[in-house]
C-alpha cells in the first residue's frame, strides 16, 4: 500500500485549484454564449453609452482580462455590483445574505443525512427503514418543492416572503432536500451496504470470536469509504440546494446562481459559482485531511512490535 497518501494529496490539489478554475470556466462560458449583457440595457445600435457600460462591466477586453480583473478584485473581497439581479447592490452583500441561508439549508439536511448514515452503520435503522426511505426518495426534489411552495403561497398569500413564511420555507427546503432524490435513503443504504460487506470479512469474525465489538474493528477500515460517501452526499445536497432554493424561492447561493444566469448577470453568476466551488473545495480538503489522519492511524506500527 505504498503511496496511500497520493489520493488525499491529489484531493488537496484539486481543492486548492477548484476556486480558481471555476470562475475561469464561467468567464469562458460568458464569452462563448451569444449576446452581450450590456446590450440588454443599451443596444449599441440604438443607444449611446453601451461601450462605456461594457467597459464598466469589463466585457470589452476579452475573457482573460475579465477573469484576471475579477479574480484580483475577489481576492481583495470586492465582487462588484449586481448588473441585473438586484441592480446596483454589491454582490458581496447578496452573498452575505445568501451564503448563511445555503449553509443552514445544506447543513441541516447534511446533519439528517449523516444521522441516516450513522443509523445504518450502527444498525439502529434496518432494512424496513431503508425500504421506506428509498420509496420516499423516488420523488424528485422539483415535485416535492413545488408542492411545498404552493402550500406556503396559498397559506401566506402576499406575506409569502414574510418572516413566518420564511421559516416554513427553510423547514420545507430541508425536508425536501433530505427526502427527495434518495438522499436519506441513499445514505442509509450506502452505510448499511458498506457495513455488511465489511462485517463479512474474516478478521471481523475473528474479532467477534475474541469477544470484541465488530464496529470497533471495522471502523478504521470503513472510515475512508464512509468519509467519501459523506462528501458525495453533501455534494449531492449542494446540487439539490440549487433546485430547492429556486423552487421554494429561498434566498440562497443556488437561487442567486439561477437568477443570475437567467438575467445574464454574470457578475453574480461568477461569484455564486465560485462560492459553490469553495464549498466543494472545503469538502474535498476535509475528505483529504480525514483520509490522511485515518491513514496515519491505521498504518501506525502497533505497540509492542519492532519496526
Amino acid at each position, binding site marked *: 500500500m505504498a503511496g496511500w497518501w497520493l489520493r488525499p494529496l491529489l484531493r488537496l490539489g484539486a481543492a486548492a485549484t477548484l476556486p480558481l478554475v471555476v470562475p475561469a470556466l464561467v468567464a469562458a462560458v460568458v464569452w462563448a454564449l451569444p449576446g452581450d449583457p450590456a446590450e440588454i440595457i443599451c443596444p449599441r445600435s*440604438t*443607444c449611446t453609452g453601451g461601450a462605456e457600460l461594457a467597459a464598466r462591466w469589463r466585457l470589452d477586453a476579452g475573457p482573460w482580462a475579465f477573469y484576471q480583473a475579477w479574480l484580483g478584485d475577489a481576492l481583495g473581497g470586492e465582487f462588484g455590483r449586481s448588473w*441585473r439581479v438586484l*441592480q446596483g447592490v454589491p454582490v458581496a452583500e447578496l452573498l452575505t445574505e445568501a451564503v448563511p441561508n445555503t449553509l443552514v439549508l445544506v447543513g441541516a439536511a447534511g446533519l439528517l443525512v449523516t444521522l441516516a448514515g450513522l443509523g445504518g452503520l450502527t444498525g439502529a435503522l434496518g432494512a424496513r427503514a431503508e425500504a421506506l426511505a428509498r420509496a420516499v426518495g423516488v420523488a424528485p426534489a422539483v415535485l416535492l418543492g413545488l408542492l411545498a411552495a404552493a402550500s406556503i*403561497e396559498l397559506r401566506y398569500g402576499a406575506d409569502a416572503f414574510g418572516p413566518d413564511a420564511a421559516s416554513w420555507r427553510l423547514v420545507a427546503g430541508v425536508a425536501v432536500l433530505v427526502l427527495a432524490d434518495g438522499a436519506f435513503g441513499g445514505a442509509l443504504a450506502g452505510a448499511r451496504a458498506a457495513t455488511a460487506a465489511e462485517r463479512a470479512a474474516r478478521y471481523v469474525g475473528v474479532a467477534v470470536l475474541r469477544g470484541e465489538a465488530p464496529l470497533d474493528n471495522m471502523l478504521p477500515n470503513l472510515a475512508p469509504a464512509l468519509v467519501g460517501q459523506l462528501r458525495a452526499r453533501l455534494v449531492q445536497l449542494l446540487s439539490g440546494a440549487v433546485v430547492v432554493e429556486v423552487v421554494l424561492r429561498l434566498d440562497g447561493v443556488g437561487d442567486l446562481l439561477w437568477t443570475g444566469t437567467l438575467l445574464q448577470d454574470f457578475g453574480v453568476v461568477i461569484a455564486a459559482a465560485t462560492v459553490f466551488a469553495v464549498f466543494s473545495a472545503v469538502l474535498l480538503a476535509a475528505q483529504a485531511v480525514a483520509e490522511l489522519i485515518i491513514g496515519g492511524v491505521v498504518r501506525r506500527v502497533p505497540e509492542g512490535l519492532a519496526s
Partner: protein
Amino acid sequence: MTAPFRPIRAWLVGVAAVASLLLTGAQLSFYEESLPGTLNPLYAQSMVDFRAQELVFDRIFYHDPVDNQIVSRVVERSELAEGGKAYRVTLKDGLRWHDGKAVGAADLCFTVEAMLDPKTPSRIAQGYRTVLAGCEVESERVALVMFTRVFHNPKERLGFALLPKGAFTGTAIAPDTDFSVHPIGSGPYKGGKGKRGVTFEAYANGHHAARVNQLSLQEGGDPIVQVNTLKQKSAQGIVAVAPPLRPDVSAADDLQLKSYDLRSWWFIAVNTKRPALADKRVRQALDRTLDRTELRTLTIGVKPGEQNSPCEFISGPFVQSSPFYNRAVPTRDKSDRATASRLLTEAGYKLVGGLWQHNGQPVKLNIGMLAPLDKEAPELLQQISNQLGAGGFDRVETRISVDDWNRRVVTGQATEFDLLVGKWSFGVVEEVNQLFETRTGAKGAFNIFGYSSPEADAAVAAYNAARTDTAAADAYHKLHAVLADQLPYLFLWKLDTKSAWRTEVRGNTISPYFYWTEVDGWTFGG
C-alpha cells in the same frame, strides 16, 4: 415661502405624516406581473418598471386621468420661450426629495443633462436626445429647458421623471448603482427594492399626502393563486388579471374589476425584406388568411357576439379610442381564404400538395412571439400558426424571451424571422414614429424589420411638422391608412387590461399607463 416659516411648515408636514399613519396605518399588498427590474427611471424597460417608478418620482408634466389635461404637481408656472424652442419652468416652493433636501431648478437641469450625456447608457435618455437640447438654471426655482425644434405639444415632451442632482456624482448615470434599488425621488412614496418584493413608505411632502402608509409590491406567480389570495384577504390587489379569470373576480362580492387604460395593441410584424414577403399581395394574403374572431375566441376566451369584449380589433397602430385612429380603415375580423388564394396566385405563388410555393420552393414561415404574451392570450402563437398552416403555409414557431425581444427584435436584428407577434403599449401620447419610419440614425429605432416606405416617412414628417393637434391627427390618419395598405404589420387587437382590487380599497383611481399617478387619493383600512 420665507425662511422663518419653513420650520413650522416642516412641523406641520410631520404632524400630517403621523396623523395619516395613525388614521390609516395600513399596508396595502398587491401583485404585479413581475418585480421591477430597476427603480431608476432612466432604465425602465417594462410596464412594471414604469408603474413602480411612478410611486417614487414626480414627472414634470403628466396627463390628468380625469380630464386628460396636461398638469403638474411640481411646476408653479411655465411658458414658451425663444420662439417655441424652449420652455421656462418655475418649480413650486417647498418641494422636498426623500432625503429632505430641497428640489430646485438645478435638479431639473441635471436631469436634462444626464439624459443628454452620451455616456448615460439609457434607451429612455436616447429617446429624449432627439427632443431636448439643453437646460439653463435661471434662478433657484426657474429653469429654461431647450428643445431641438419647435413642438406642437411641448409640455408633453417634459413628461420625464425628475432626478436629484445630489444623489449622483456626475451626469453619466450608470444603471448598476444603489439608486436603482434605493432611489431618492420626490413622489408620494419612498421605495426600496428587495430580492422578493418592493416596499413603498409614504413620504409626506408639500405636493403629496399619500393616505395609505405602506404599499407592498409582490411578484405575481400563478394567476389562480393570486385571485384566491385576494379572496382570502391576504392581498388587496392584482394589477393585471388574466382574461380567463375575470369572470371569477366579477362574481366575488368583495372584489372589483377596474379598467386600466394601457393603450396596448397587438400585432404581427411582417419581414418585408424577405423575398417571399416583399410583395404587398403576399402580406395582404396573410392578413386575409387570419381569422381574428376565431383567434380571440380560442386564446382570450371572447365568446362570439359577446358584449363589452375586452378585445377590440384594430386596423392600424392605434387603439380605437385614440384621436389618431382612422375610422375609415375597416378592421378585418374574419378570414377570406378565397381572396388570399387569388392574391397569392397573382403574386406568382403556386399551391402544390396543399402548400404554397414561391419560385418552386415551399414557403416556410419562421414565426416568433414575445413569450409573456402567452399569459394574456394562451396558445396565441400556436393558433396563429395553425391558421397559417390551414392557409397553405409551412411554418416553425419560437417563443422569444423579454431580454431577446429587447436586445434583438426591437433593435431590428431578428431578421431570421418572417413574422413576429408582439404588443406595444402607450401612454396618452401615442407616438408611433419610431416604429414605422425608415431606420436611419436616431429615426426608426423600434422599426422591427427595417420597413421603409416613402409614404409612411412622409406621414411621419407631417406629424413632426404639425403645430396643432388637428394637424398631428391628420398626419397619423394618413399613416394609419398607408400602413393598413402596405401591411408591414398585421394589426390584431387592443386587449383591455383589468385590475382587481378588494372593495376595502377606496378612491383607487387608476391612471392610464402609469397607474399610480393619483395614488394620493387611495385609502385602505382605518
